[in-house]
């Protein structure tokens, strides 16, 4: 007599998210990979296989290297400036038990505003030569040009706006992690005469290491996906000075109708994200071993 087969409900429970992931991540991912070897213009039913031509053309394009360089600049800036500001703010808020909620809400306002709103604010309130801060400075005889107009500074200006909106998010994450640090360790260290920097270095930082590592990886992945603030502030200009892989691929797909080539550029975005994910997995495993 056959034993009655048990229904494994796990498969049913995981099915919806799996199906959604397959439909909107795996299938488009495979399609992007396949289209990167074609000359598809995004509309035509005539799709020709062109081998590695798209990749060869991209490797010969100076703008592609400019885009990668800008993405790397973006990663470096985001791994340092907002991390330091966010951590500093979180440490300062840690001991402000009564008022930290108000500060957190105030700091988070740029983060919860839509990127389009933030970009318009900066374009019109800060950078505008008619009504912005730069116009006001001109009235006082300080004739400064907007950093967005200079090919050497434009990428830093764009990153600055994005960092302004992003650092508070990190601050909230770090604060949540810092609050989980066992108070007995903190108190013991204080009794032993630890200074504040020593307390941070030897008690808090080791305890929030996994959160910091995770955020490093998320920032790296996010930096290679950078698109919205650049598109809104400069569109990748002037003269490609703020081009990143995201705007480069968008321009290929929607301005030049070269979707095949855009797919090839898109693969590089995924490639860098994949490296960051692999590093995170490796670090997580090492942590588990410890």
């Amino acid at each position: 007599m056959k034993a009655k087969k048990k229904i494994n409900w796990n498969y049913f429970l995981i099915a919806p998210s799996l199906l959604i992931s397959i439909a909107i991540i795996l299938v488009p991912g495979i399609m992007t990979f396949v289209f990167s070897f074609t000359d598809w213009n995004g509309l035509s039913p005539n799709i020709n296989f062109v081998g590695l031509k798209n990749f060869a053309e991209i490797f010969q394009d100076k703008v592609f290297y400019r885009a990668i360089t800008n993405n790397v600049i973006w990663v470096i800036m985001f791994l340092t400036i907002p991390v330091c500001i966010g951590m500093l703010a979180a440490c300062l808020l840690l001991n402000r038990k009564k008022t930290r909620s108000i500060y957190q809400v105030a700091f988070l306002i740029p983060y919860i505003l839509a990127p389009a709103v933030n970009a318009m604010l900066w374009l019109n309130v800060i950078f505008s030569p008619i009504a912005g801060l730069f116009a006001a400075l001109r009235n006082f005889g300080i004739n400064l040009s907007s950093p967005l107009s200079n090919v050497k500074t434009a990428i830093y200006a764009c990153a600055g706006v994005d960092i302004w909106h992003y650092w508070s998010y990190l601050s909230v994450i770090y604060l949540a992690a810092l609050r989980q640090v066992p108070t007995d360790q903190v108190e013991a260290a204080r009794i032993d005469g630890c200074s504040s920097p020593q307390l941070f270095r030897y008690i808090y930082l080791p305890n929030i290491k996994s959160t910091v590592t995770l955020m490093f990886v998320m920032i790296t992945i996010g930096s290679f996906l950078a698109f919205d603030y650049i598109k809104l502030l400069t569109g990748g200009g002037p003269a490609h000075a703020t081009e990143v892989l995201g705007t480069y691929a968008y321009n290929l797909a929607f301005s030049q109708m070269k979707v095949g080539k855009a797919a090839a550029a898109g693969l590089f975005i995924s490639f860098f994200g994949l490296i960051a994910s692999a590093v995170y997995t490796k670090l997580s495993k090492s942590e588990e071993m410890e």
Partner: protein
Amino acid sequence: MKGKKLIATLLTASMLASAAAVPALADGDREDITMWFWGAEPYAQEALINLLVNPYNESQDQYNLVVEFRPSVDADIQTALAANEGPDIVYGSGPSFVMPLVEAGKLEPMDAYSEQYGWADKILTPYYESGTVNGTLYSLVNGVSTMGVFYNKKVLADNGWEVPTTIEELEAVMDAAMEKGLYASVTGNKGWQPVNENYGSLFLTHIAGPETMYKVLTGEESWENEAVIAAVTKSKEWWDKGYLAGSDYPNLNFSESLQLLSAEQSPFFIGPSIAYQWAASYFTGDIEENLGFIPFPATEQVPDTTYTLGAACTLSINANASQEHKDEAAKIIDMMMNAEFMQNMTAAWPGYWGTPLKDLSSVDTSEMPYLSQEFVKVVQSVSEAVNAGNFGYYDNVFFPSATQNRIVNIDEVWYDTVSVEDYVASIQAEFEVEFEKGLVPPIPQPAVAE
């Protein structure tokens, strides 16, 4: 628990009720005819609703014209059509935008409608032909746009400057303006990088010249010729001298530029005639008549009044729409292709609806505000110049998309990231590919200089 069940039941009931109510709310049993449009200024959107949507909807009881204003209309249209969806009336940012859509079979041939409504007879031939692919009509240009020089009459008069008639005079006034602490001219590409193409097209028309550009666009001559190189070099010279708003170019848009012109911060705004629509917000009341417009002044290469032929937008019909919707879409497009519509729209929205008609004699400007009257004069003047063959080629009308994109990137030369020669070679490389694929729109022949 009971409370939760009750809330769930009420929510479900309300959802079902609202779903059932949707058809009843959709303006009786009318079917929607859809059109997507760019995100024009609020007063302009209102004008289109009042003068196109409402009259059409009131004229019959079967269909309901719905216009959606979308700032990202170009990308939206491409994505929707790729999925065999999208609006019945397809907006395009110029005939060159239309070519890939035709190649992909996304647009309906409009020859039968052209015959029905007599479009070939009433629309200026170069504009009509720019909407054809291999002799078949796929799009109509809604409005003429041309590059020219807007000027503030008061600024010129106050400083004793004459309205320039040659490029040398124009440059002399701009030099003098900068010495006085004014902008040489105001313009900028904030929020819309393709503004660069205005200046690429302008210098190709007035420095390289229409004859050379005709040969280049018909494949008779390479882009890498002295005349084209001279045109790009001239644009760089203007950039270096700060004639294009100096370092504020990336921080100004057309609206702000017109604001500065009205505030007497510059003698000139060199840009497309569609900019009248932004001027209407700033040249108001006592200063309304301070605004003047002249065609780009004479150059050594192009001494006669010559206009760069540009388009405000194109209108096509979605090939995936039902036959009834296609017929209605054609009817609506025809409503926009007549002098009366141009007259009414221009009165309310100057600058955008310069319908490219051969005969504009019936357009009555007597009741129009000053700016609308001035815009009609520009359109009439363009119409005369086209009939005389004095025209050049705006890139969004006559260049295929990748070539057009290279013109948009002319700022690579301005910012010294690419040499003029390398830049022109890169245009040639893109153009060759697109020319071989047959993606270049029909190029009307200009008058041959004697």
